[in-house]
């Protein structure tokens, strides 16, 4: 889309720079500052959760118990999951939303900037509480990130109340963030930025925000019932009082399945921005992408019980959830098809964001296929709670969501900092990550199909060879992310070649018309969009 930008003298009112010192970050209402805070917080959480994964892989390097107690192992799997879902992936996408949505739709800032600050700053406190609880007597949460009753009620430790309240705060943060995004997109689009001109990242976040507002309160309800069951004598999840532990799973997965799409829809938006740029073609099938995203969001509400096939639901319910789940592969297939069709006969160049995007398309699709296998009810009876499930969701979340986040960082980082990242380090980061992540997660399929259960610190001796390879892959993947850390520090200290406004010659969108680095305030008067 062609744009004509206002000249700089037009918007002198908002043209003061950032405040000095720590106040800038504590009191900020600037979407770029808050986006940066979110992204760094998410990255620190990613390394923290990653360190916990290293503990898990070290313990699983050989059968028997070597390094940690089983109870501590359970805390590691639990907090690793919670941190990666709520502390790394979700805040990272919110950070990107903060940085990019106002730039992409020609808005001066998010619609509700002060609430934006609040929704970020409660997040570090929530994770402080969660991490503090690890040091309590009796340890932190050890019931898995899904906190199934009765593990989280009858059999949980004293830190459960802290866990519940920290999840409440994470939920409040997500809801406020989502309200901000959705109102920004509804109300702050520049004149002429009609719905079907929105970049797909904006579209996917719009639908994600709707999912967040719909399901995070349900999670709040679930943890509240866990709290009252544990501490106030209710029996929602206890058959003796007329409740049912399976009720917990229904409520949790009614949140949990849309949550899966919350973590992947913005990734679809990112890939839909990167692939056309480096293929030097328009995105194939823009409107079908929008409808596919909406269809996935709708379907995500009626598939939750595919996580519960082994709980003994009536057969009719199992079939319903099986078919609905398989139906999701149709809109997802549309997306993958469109990305490939975009590349078809494009003049493709392989810059690092594009390399991560292509890795995403292949490996996410791979994770989608193992998801289809898991969707088949009778087959799932065998796969349930094995490493096959672990392999599946790590393919869609690590090589899916995390790879898209890394791709997005490489794609927009020069725009944010004004300098090109260190391309050599970036290529090292890509190849080390790509190889190690497959060494890490691919063999999990084999041990899973052979029957190795998840969330157990010990295993039968025949799984030892593959587990050693998996652990080595894990350590290598963990170390590879330190390359990324070094690269990010270097870029943030503005070491590198200055870049022009349009960093990538094939890029389209309002953000590429702004100077690099982007000024502190942008679009103080709305741009004209033709």
């Amino acid at each position, binding site marked *: 889309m062609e744009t004509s930008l206002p000249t700089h003298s037009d918007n002198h009112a908002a043209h003061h720079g950032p405040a000095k010192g720590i106040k800038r970050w504590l009191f900020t209402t600037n979407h770029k500052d808050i986006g940066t805070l979110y992204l760094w917080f998410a990255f620190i959480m990613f390394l923290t959760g990653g360190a916990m994964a290293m503990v898990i892989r070290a313990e699983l390097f050989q059968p028997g118990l070597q390094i940690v107690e089983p109870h501590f192992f359970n805390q590691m799997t639990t907090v690793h999951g919670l941190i990666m879902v709520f502390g790394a992936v979700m805040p990272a996408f919110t950070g990107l939303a903060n940085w990019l949505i106002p730039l992409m739709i020609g808005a001066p800032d998010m619609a509700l900037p002060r609430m934006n600050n609040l929704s970020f700053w409660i997040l570090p406190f929530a994770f402080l*509480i969660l991490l503090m609880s690890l040091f309590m007597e009796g340890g932190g949460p050890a019931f898995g990130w899904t906190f199934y009753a009765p593990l989280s009620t009858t059999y949980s430790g004293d830190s459960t109340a*802290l866990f519940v309240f920290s999840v409440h705060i994470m939920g409040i943060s997500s809801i406020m963030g989502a309200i901000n995004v959705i109102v920004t997109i509804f109300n702050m689009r520049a004149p002429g930025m009609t719905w079907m001109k929105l970049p797909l990242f904006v579209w996917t976040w719009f639908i994600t925000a709707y999912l967040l*507002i*719909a399901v995070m309160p*349900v999670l709040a309800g679930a943890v509240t019932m866990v709290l009252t069951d544990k501490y106030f*004598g209710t029996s929602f999840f206890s058959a003796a*009082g*007329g409740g049912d532990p399976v009720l917990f799973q229904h409520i949790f997965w009614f949140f949990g399945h849309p949550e899966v799409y919350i973590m992947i829809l913005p990734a679809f938006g990112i890939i839909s921005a990167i692939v056309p740029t480096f293929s030097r073609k328009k995105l194939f099938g823009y409107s079908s992408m929008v409808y596919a995203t909406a269809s996935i969001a709708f379907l995500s509400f009626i598939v939750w019980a595919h996580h519960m096939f082994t709980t003994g639901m009536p057969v009719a319910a199992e079939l319903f959830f099986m078919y609905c789940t398989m139906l999701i592969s149709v809109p997802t297939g549309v997306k993958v098809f469109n990305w490939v069709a975009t590349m078809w006969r494009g003049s493709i160049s392989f810059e690092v964001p594009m390399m991560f995007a292509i890795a995403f398309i292949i490996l996410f699709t791979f994770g989608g296929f193992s998801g289809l296998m898991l969707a088949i009810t009778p087959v799932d009876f065998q796969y349930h709670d094995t490493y096959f499930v672990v392999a599946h969701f790590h393919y869609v979340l690590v090589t899916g969501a995390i790879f898209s986040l890394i791709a997005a960082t490489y794609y927009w980082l020069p725009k944010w900092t004004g300098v090109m990242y260190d391309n050599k380090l970036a290529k090292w980061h890509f190849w080390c990550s790509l190889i190690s992540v497959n060494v890490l997660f691919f063999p999990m399929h084999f041990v899973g199909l052979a029957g190795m259960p998840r969330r157990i610190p010990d295993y039968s001796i025949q799984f030892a060879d593959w587990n050693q390879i998996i652990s080595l892959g894990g350590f290598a993947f963990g170390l590879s992310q330190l390359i990324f850390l070094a690269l990010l520090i270097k870029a943030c200290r503005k070491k590198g070649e200055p870049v022009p406004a349009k960093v990538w010659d094939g890029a389209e969108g309002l953000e590429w018309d702004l100077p690099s680095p982007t000024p502190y305030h942008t679009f103080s008067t709305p741009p004209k969009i033709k």
Partner: protein
Amino acid sequence: MTDHNEKYYVPEQSPWPIVGAIAFFLIAVGAGNLVAQISQSGTGGWGRYVLYTGIALIIFMLFGWFRDQIKESTTGMHNHQLGVSYRQGMSWFIFSEVMFFAAFFGALFYTRTISVPWLAGAGNNAMTAAVLWPNFEAIWPLTTTPSGQTTEAMGYQGLPLINTLILLVSSITVHFAHTGLELNKRGQLKVMLAITVLLGCIFLALQVMEYIHAYRDLDLRLDSGVYGNTFYLLTGFHGLHVFLGTVFLFIMLLRIFAGHFDSSNHFAFQAASWYWHFVDVVWLCLFIFVYIL
């Protein structure tokens, strides 16, 4: 999207969000500690003081934040677009509240139609019922739990019915307060809003009486099996929302006496009235599904 936003308004930096974040932290740590200590020893330790500090801080934060906000609004710094953002934000917030209640209604429907009948042997659960609790009968309200705990059911006549009428009337009065504001009839606005606040207080008082009646006469307690659980969590969270809504409306009343709002500029009042209508609709669902059916 129209010509209203020729010039954007971007608010200044504010210290209040970070104060709110610290308050949330104190509330969570305090409440987490208090709850765990009460379940262990029956009394709270230091947790309660942290909790109280957090609550005090959040009230302080709300006063400070809204004072700044009102000052900016009355000095004409807000534009039409910001008003639209606020209204849309409030609508989505209410939608999130609807989903919060949906979780508890979902639990109610599940236990009524699935878990309680299954425990009595419905579907393919005949053996489970025979082995675990052979004498258990599936009835709703669940006055005898599988483990044998008994309680009495709360009827819909009496206090709940009166409370329904009170909330319905209050929804009408708040509507007339709103039309009074829009037509610039300040007298009608003040009277109708004051009546609404009063009705909210009466509702809360009657609900306290109802709880006392339930505990003392019916032995219907929070821990009386899923009937008591769903009853207290649904009516309790609703009551909390009525309380917050009443406080919200009361502050609006104070602001109206202070001369705030006019027929075109009254987002806070509108938000309070939307919130009140939402609370009313939740109560109607409660009255049907918790009390009558």
